[in-house]
């Protein structure tokens, strides 16, 4: 304890006041006070230092972290830069490709537009041509789409029907059928516009049309319809004039011919005295020619009446059985002359038919005479009359043993002024009007006429007339 001062190096040397120098206790007290002051100051400094050290340590750690982060960031930056450079290059490449593609597309589009424009022009031309044809078509045309809506009407149809395209286009058939100007047309074709061919109808006075309805198909599906109006007024007028001429001419011929016939018959009967055999022979030939002329004129008269549409005059119940028997009787002289046999077969209780007796008589007479005329001598004529209850009609048939009709001429057998080649070559005279007249008469009664024939073997003519029960309306015919 006594060597304490000797053993330790004292660093505290402080100047002291004069009074205190003399006092050891005072000195020690002063020293201790100063020491405490210094220790407290030192402690504070130490604390500050430690805090600083801590902060520095944190800062150093931060610096290290920052340095590491910086390195990481730099690496990332480099990677990123590389990536971006690649991306930019890639984008650049893509932009170039895209630009090229767009250029190509543009060119292709431009080419396509040119083609389209060309096609369009062609189509326009085609359409224009088609429209031009339709517009200038001499027939009237009405064009409907698949829904029966009128999509086109040409000027001729406008004229015929007295309508304006703007008023009727875009309207369907059901509505059109009630338009005043079109009522008569739709009365013929119906609102459903079923296909039909050349049906005649009249618009206004002496204005006659033939109307046809035709469905159009596209790729096997119905695509629409069109109506064709064909003006037949002129043809009809000509035909009528012709008929009128024939009728007048025939009447003017018929009267003198009848006078001639009356005079010739009187002469031949010896009313004006005896004639030499030679005179008689000429006179008989003259009479025969006169007869043929009378028949011809009668046929012509019938024809003109048929064509005027005023042929069938009145109707009554007629017994075909009686009518046929009477005609067979009248034919007897001719049959005997040609040495022809004739048989008449009939079913029982054949009902009467409602008919124009005079006209039906003409048919029966004509068919029987034909059979007699064209049968070869020594042959046989077979006549039959029967009722077909199933079809409710009476069928007349007459079979000859004549020259027959060639196949290539069968189709024309009922046409006007037609005579089969072999008929012309035979000695039999004929106007070529008989069968035409027959057909008109039978059909005017609602009946049918047809034939079966084999060349050189003979022909069978048939006609059938419908049976009407008594009391059934006559106006139906």
């Amino acid at each position: 304890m006594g060597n304490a001062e000797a053993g330790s190096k004292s660093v505290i040397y402080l100047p002291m006041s004069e009074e205190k120098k003399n006092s050891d206790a005072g000195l020690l007290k002063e020293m201790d006070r100063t020491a405490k002051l210094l220790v407290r100051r030192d402690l504070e400094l130490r604390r500050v230092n430690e805090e600083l050290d801590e902060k520095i340590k944190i800062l150093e750690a931060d610096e290290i972290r920052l340095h590491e982060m910086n390195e990481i960031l730099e690496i990332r930056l480099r990677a990123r830069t590389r990536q971006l450079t690649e991306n930019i290059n890639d984008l650049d490449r893509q932009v170039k490709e895209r630009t090229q593609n767009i250029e190509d597309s543009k060119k292709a589009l431009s080419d396509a537009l040119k083609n389209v424009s060309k096609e369009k022009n062609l189509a326009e031309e085609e359409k224009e041509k088609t429209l031009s044809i339709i517009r200038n078509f001499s027939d009237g045309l009405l064009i409907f789409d698949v829904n029966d809506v009128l999509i086109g009407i040409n000027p001729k149809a406008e004229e015929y029907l007295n309508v304006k395209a703007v008023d009727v286009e875009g309207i369907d058939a059901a509505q059109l059928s009630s338009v005043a100007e079109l009522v008569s047309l739709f009365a013929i074709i119906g609102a459903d516009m079923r296909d039909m061919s050349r049906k005649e109808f009249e618009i206004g006075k002496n204005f006659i049309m033939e109307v046809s309805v035709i469905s159009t198909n596209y790729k096997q599906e119905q695509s629409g319809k069109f109506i064709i109006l064909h003006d037949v007024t002129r043809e009809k007028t000509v035909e009528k004039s012709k008929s009128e001429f024939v009728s007048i001419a025939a009447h003017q011929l018929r009267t003198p011919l009848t006078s001639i016939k009356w005079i010739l018959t009187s002469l031949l009967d010896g009313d004006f005295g005896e004639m030499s055999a030679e005179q008689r022979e000429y006179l008989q030939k003259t009479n025969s020619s006169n007869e043929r002329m009378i028949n011809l004129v009668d046929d012509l008269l019938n024809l003109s009446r048929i064509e005027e549409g005023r042929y069938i005059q009145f109707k009554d119940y007629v017994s075909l059985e009686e009518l046929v028997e009477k005609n067979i009787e009248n034919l007897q002289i001719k049959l005997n002359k040609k040495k022809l046999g004739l048989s008449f077969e009939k079913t029982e209780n054949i009902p009467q038919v409602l008919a124009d007796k005079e006209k039906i008589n003409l048919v029966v007479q004509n068919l029987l005479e034909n059979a007699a005329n064209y049968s070869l001598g020594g042959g046989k004529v077979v006549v039959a009359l029967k009722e077909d209850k199933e079809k409710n009609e009476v069928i007349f048939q007459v079979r000859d043993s004549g020259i027959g009709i060639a196949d290539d001429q069968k189709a024309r057998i009922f046409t006007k002024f037609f005579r089969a080649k072999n008929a012309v070559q035979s000695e039999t005279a004929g106007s070529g009007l008989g069968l035409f007249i027959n057909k008109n008469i039978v059909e005017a009664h609602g009946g049918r006429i047809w034939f079966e024939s084999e060349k050189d073997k003979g022909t069978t003519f048939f006609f059938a007339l419908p049976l009407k029960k008594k009391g059934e309306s006559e106006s139906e015919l």
Partner: protein
Amino acid sequence: METVVGVGASSDSNSKEAGMEACRQAFEKVSSPELVIVFASSKLDQKEMLSGVREISKGVPLIGCSTAGEITSAGAAEGSVAVMAISSDVIDFTIGKGGDLKSGVREAGAQLVKNITGSAKDKTNCLLMLTDVLNGNGAEVVRGIQDVLGSDTLIIGGAAGDDFLFKQTFNYYNGDISSSSVVGVGLSGDYGIGVGVRHGWVSIGAPMKATKSKDAVLKELDGKPAVSIYEDYFGKKAEELREEPLAKLAITYPLGMSVEGSDELLIRDPITVDAEGAITCAAEIPEGAEVRLMIGSKEEAIAAAKDAAQKALAQLAGKTPRAVIVFNCIARRKLFGRDAGDEIAAIREVLGKDVPLIGFYTYGEIAPFNESADKPFSRFHNETAVVAVIGD
């Protein structure tokens, strides 16, 4: 070259990797090491760290301890592992271990010596020891050693640390890790060794008398509760000083007492304060001793370290320094703060920068007091720098 020494260090955050890396570095220059010394931070996983070291060192005898900071040629570090590997033709190394300090501090010290001398071929002329002061009075361990070895034999060493937490320290003995223990290595053979011991703290204020004291517990100074010295000088209340271990605040203001045969006062660390104001120190303060408050400065501390190194070198008597081992008090690290490396640099400047150096910041140092090579009477020190240099 008769003695070859290598040093390695690693701050790897993976404890095992750190141990392996430090040992690998130490082994680079030493082909067949005979002794491995390990100083490692208590922050590391002790088991992993030591297994890492042993994976490289294999069966080479190993001692070491946990620290409050590691010292190598590179300077001062925290949270790292430092490894020294030594092979020598002239020195024989015998490692040993004492019993549990809790079952008898002095006995443990004695047991350590017996353990070593029992295996050593020749007479042990130096003992390097590592102890745990959290579980037993360091001075008492030294006395236990001296009971067997005699007071003439050189004893150097340090008390293990735990990074200023004062909770648990560890000693390493080959692959074993233990607390409350003492381990050591005895050196024998014909070699040179020098030891310098200096602290550099200076007294301040008026001297006081230890009026009541028992072993390491200083109860009264000048008839007042011992803690009053710190209340007076720090201007703080006793309650404030009790809040944390007193060491945390007072370690750079230790107590000094004069001891016969030394120029410097012997330093005693204040560790804790009890309710009566009694201060428990790191080693005993005899009743009647003159006690003074001590204060330090970096300049004084560096000068002291340099002086210690010079004294150690002088004791080698011309032999070449091969290895330096430093036991440096944690208080000094606190004093230097970030500049702790300056002290190490000063030591290396004296002993040669190429000489491998290892050491650690301790909770107490063991070294001779009178610095006489002829009559080395070792004692337990506080707040002191002990520089030991081995040469051949």
